[in-house]
């Protein structure tokens, strides 16, 4: 059974991410993740939001990010929605961790931390990125 745990809308501004991180932290804590996993999940979702701000919205401050967190018996599911033009999925690849350079770590963190990551929608009505973290048995 799928349960909606929380829905939050923020302006796509870097200063707003702290609020989102707090909500994610609380949700993962209440669901029972260990502190280290809580921190990692916060990081992954935060990185995805940063990517929306920088790459989808090109730092436009008046756009919106919508986060919905669901839970089922097996996982916590994060869906991030934006209203930007369709992301070029072919270009959305994590970098090689052996490569030491300033950029490109965000996607790497997302893929390292989350168990599943996929774009559910990519079209005229914006993008929906879904990230799934399995609950421990």
């Amino acid at each position: 059974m799928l349960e909606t745990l929380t829905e939050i809308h923020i302006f796509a501004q870097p200063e707003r991410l702290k609020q989102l991180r707090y909500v994610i932290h609380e949700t993962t804590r209440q669901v029972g993740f260990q502190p280290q996993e809580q921190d990692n999940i916060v990081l992954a979702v935060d990185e995805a939001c940063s990517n929306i701000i920088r790459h989808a919205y090109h730092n436009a401050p008046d756009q919106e990010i919508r986060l919905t967190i669901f839970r089922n018996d097996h996982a916590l599911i994060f869906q991030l929605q934006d209203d930007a033009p369709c992301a070029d999925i072919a270009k959305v690849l994590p970098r090689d961790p052996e490569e030491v350079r300033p950029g490109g770590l965000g996607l790497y963190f997302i893929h390292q931390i989350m168990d599943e990551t996929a774009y559910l929608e990519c079209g005229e009505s914006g993008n929906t990125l879904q990230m799934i973290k399995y609950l421990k048995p």
Partner: protein
Amino acid sequence: MSFPIEEKSGYAVVYLSGEVDLSRSPEARKAILSCLRKKVNLLVDLSAVAYIDSSGIACLVEGYQISRKRKIDFALVGVSDNAMNVLRLARLDQVFPIYPSFAARLSGGM
């Protein structure tokens, strides 16, 4: 809000603190680059960093790369548990010189 910089024993020490995220990493970058422009040996103190994201890590990587080109000493000191976790995730804990404290760096101890 800028991050404080202290000069001591031939080093500039940039004290990062709090949540070094997309909103604050530009200030972190500014602080680090300002020291490197002066060609001063640089230590970045992460003991008070509660959170750091990839944009914060990118500042450290950029600083490290510039320091190597200019043959300037660069190291991280007092890395908080949270910051170390992110450095490990990025596999950068084996790339940066890391010391438990400023004193440890001066004495050359790990």
